[in-house]
């Protein structure tokens, strides 16, 4: 019996934290591999719609991004709450889209200039009027390959 009396001291043994760095490093490596650096901070709300029949865009160097959505709360005072276009780090009008595409295209390597895709990251609350204006602009500068970027999911959820 005397053997077991020791435990009644009430001291909990200290939990070893020796493996904590390993765990944190594991998390770190996980995030380093599955994420990529942000190259522009979003100034518009960007909840993408869901779709199920999607194709992956693979090479990042062949993609030009266009963001559309309501300005986020900190920009709403100056830019209002109507959906706006964001190109790189600036708000832009429909007329600027063509120039932006030409500029970005000129920056890419020669052999990539004909295979560029325009990724449209559009908030699901935006209206089609703005989108079709952008599409007209894209047609004018002959940037015809478009990808409507979406989340993977059930498309019926978009209607709610």
């Amino acid at each position, binding site marked *: 019996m005397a053997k077991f009396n020791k435990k009644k001291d009430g001291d909990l043994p200290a939990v070893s934290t020796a493996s904590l760095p390993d765990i944190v490093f594991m998390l770190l490596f996980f*995030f380093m591999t599955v994420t990529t650096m*942000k190259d522009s901070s979003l100034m518009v709300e960007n909840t993408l719609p869901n779709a199920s029949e999607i194709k992956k865009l693979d090479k990042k160097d062949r993609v030009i991004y266009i963001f559309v959505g309501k300005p986020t709360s900190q920009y709403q005072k100056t830019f209002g709450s109507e959906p706006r276009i964001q190109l790189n780090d600036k708000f832009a009008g429909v007329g600027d889209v063509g120039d932006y595409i030409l500029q970005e295209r000129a920056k890419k390597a020669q052999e990539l200039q004909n295979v560029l895709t325009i990724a449209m990251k559009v908030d699901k609350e935006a209206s089609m009027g703005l989108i079709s204006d952008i599409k007209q602009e894209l047609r004018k500068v002959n940037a015809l390959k478009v*990808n409507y970027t979406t989340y993977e999911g059930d498309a019926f959820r978009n209607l709610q």
Partner: protein
Amino acid sequence: MPNRSIPEVSAGSMADIAFLLLIFFLVTTTIETDAGLDRMLPPDETQQPIVDIRQKNLFQVALNREGQLLVEEQPMDLAELRPAAIAFLDNGGDGSCAYCQGLQEASSSDNPNKAVITLKSDRETPYGAYIAVQNELTGAYNALRNREARARYGRAYTEIESEYLNPQTPPALKAILREQVAGIRELYPMKLTEAETARH
């Protein structure tokens, strides 16, 4: 002197350093969501070619500002759109399509090569509704292409296509896959046109 032991480096702050790095990466990076629906826009030509498409070869889809669907001038639920589009594309009305399994109705499309789907949306239509419709129409094409690809090559078209588009696929295999993809696309070409959005 020779037996002097090196004092052990304390590893207690290792966790803090790692946490700091972890938080840095959490803040500065995003998880990529680069997947979506691919579309080709029609080229901008000042002179539109006049194409005479017979009414029965047209499948008209319209979306109003509330995101409600009008298909062939009848209101329709989104859930019914995919089967309706499949029935239209796969109809094979004039009997020239050997692989079609449709009902061969005289009032619907003659051949998948002639069948055209038009999508018309309002300027006020929410983008989410538009994507949902695009998704259903893509789904209709994919369902038919998958069926033919399974019959011919033993696996789904979407599978073949994603392997073809994968940059890690060896070039020799890619050449075979390209032919398969092109062959299936020829059977059910994606003829989806968008009229300019309606103005008020």
